[in-house]
């Protein structure tokens, strides 16, 4: 293992993935990348591959795409599959509230490429694919050309249609097989039957970047910051009513309020924060500020799942109107394969719109609650479940607004521009 660079962890602002950018202010060339991090470790045989998977296991690395699945377990599952095997880096980032993958690919592509190649070596895959949104490869082809002579495998960059569900793992595998970017209902996961029916590893690009550092510096280094159950650092997108919206690398374990402070803190008096993007969950502020940013802490607060994205809502805004916009987007983004999602999401979006303008009434509100109770779990993927989760949390957190709106009194703030990202 190479020695860690000479900067030591310095509390919550430890910068591991974005260190190169912060040092030079510009994307590191391959030569600069190697000078900073050392060469990518060789994985010459199966024993070295097993050692790498073991290091990832001891490090406790979990996926950064929103699922939080233990990465070593996925690696082991694919490594045990029949050849040929395939590894896919997922940089599609379908969630509008998340910008971290784009930032990582733009500023530190070599870490991601290292991680993808190391994952390929760890599972014995000959084919390595990096998936990005079809209209923007973030200069990846240039980055790959810089290092082509050093790489053990050729990495293929594939553009994927920019749809919300296209970056779901089974949808990605299906798209790479026959250009159909829709999730599948097959019981087998991509680790067993993925691209062209082969054992396929699909990992978020940030997960791969962390893997590239664990391979160099080891599990103990990775665990040197963060908490026992959530070691290391993670990228978080902070948006909405904060002074400095953007992507930040934070140490696991700091409180949600600390994450907001890294982004300059609330710009105005605030009422709530949306955790996990459009498929995420609302939580009132200032109460949310005390939640520790760990898997366990978020889970205890009912905020688990979803990609690391925060959207802060000011007091002078209508949470119901924002929920309406989120649901409209999610409804427009269904793959159109499953009835409960295809019909249910537009219905609840329409209900939320009626509620926001004060025309839903108590009977309509009761019907909305009934709909929310039957839509989850009846689609091929988790898309409808995310929409229901968002809607339920909005009705709960903005309960006072719900009562007023259902009684026929809308609020002026519903007409203000949205605080949600992506021009919704």
């Amino acid at each position, binding site marked *: 293992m190479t020695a860690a660079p000479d900067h030591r962890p310095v509390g919550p602002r430890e910068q591991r993935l974005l260190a190169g950018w912060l040092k030079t202010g510009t994307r590191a060339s391959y030569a600069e990348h190697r000078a900073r991090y050392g060469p990518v470790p060789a994985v010459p045989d199966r024993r070295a591959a097993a050692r790498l998977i073991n290091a990832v296991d001891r490090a406790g690395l979990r996926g950064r795409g929103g699922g939080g699945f233990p990465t070593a377990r996925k690696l082991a599952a694919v490594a045990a599959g029949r050849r040929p095997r395939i590894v896919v880096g997922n940089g599609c980032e379908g969630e509008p509230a998340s910008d971290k993958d784009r930032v990582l690919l733009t500023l530190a592509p070599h870490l991601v490429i290292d991680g993808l190649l190391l994952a390929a070596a760890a599972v014995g895959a000959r084919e390595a694919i990096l998936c990005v949104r079809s209209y923007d490869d973030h200069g990846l082809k240039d980055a790959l050309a810089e290092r082509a002579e050093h790489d053990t495998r050729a990495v293929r960059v594939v553009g994927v249609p920019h749809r919300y569900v296209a970056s779901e793992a089974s949808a990605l595998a299906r798209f790479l097989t026959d250009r159909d970017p829709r999730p599948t209902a097959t019981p087998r996961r991509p680790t067993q039957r993925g691209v062209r029916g082969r054992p396929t590893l699909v990992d978020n690009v940030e997960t791969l970047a962390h893997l590239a550092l664990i391979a160099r510096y080891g599990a103990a280094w990775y665990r040197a910051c963060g908490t026992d159950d959530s070691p290391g650092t993670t990228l978080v997108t902070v948006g909405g009513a904060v002074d400095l919206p953007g992507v930040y690398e934070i140490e696991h374990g700091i409180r949600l309020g600390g994450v907001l402070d890294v982004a300059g803190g609330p710009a105005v008096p605030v009422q709530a924060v949306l955790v996990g993007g459009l498929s995420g969950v609302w939580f009132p502020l200032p109460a949310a500020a005390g939640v520790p940013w760990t898997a366990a802490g978020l889970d205890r607060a009912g905020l688990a799942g979803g990609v690391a994205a925060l959207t802060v809502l000011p007091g002078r805004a209508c949470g119901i109107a924002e929920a309406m916009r989120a649901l409209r987007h999610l409804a427009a983004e269904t793959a159109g*394969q499953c*009835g*409960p999602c295809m019909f*249910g999401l537009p219905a609840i979006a329409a209900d939320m719109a009626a509620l926001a303008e004060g025309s839903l009434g108590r009977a309509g509100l009761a019907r909305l609650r009934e*709909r929310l109770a039957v839509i989850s779990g*009846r689609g091929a993927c988790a898309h409808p479940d995310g929409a229901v989760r968002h809607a339920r949390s909005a009705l709960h957190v903005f309960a006072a607004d719900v009562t007023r709106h259902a009684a026929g009194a809308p609020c002026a703030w519903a007409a203000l521009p949205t605080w949600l990202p992506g021009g919704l």
Partner: protein
Amino acid sequence: MTPLITPPVRLAVDPIACRAHGLCAEMLPDFVRLDEWGYPIVDARTLPPERRRAARAAAQACPALAFRLRRN
């Protein structure tokens, strides 16, 4: 003679294949009801042995082959 012990059988719908024909709800109303858009909401409890024949008939009747029995 001791009764055979078989693994529990449950009902399942392939949500992509399903086209809301509604035969499953018609034939097995104690286990399947339809939502307002015509799609089946399936009771998750174990299917009792005396309902298996009717459930198998419903699975065979489904024009989309979306309604299934599963052992787990």
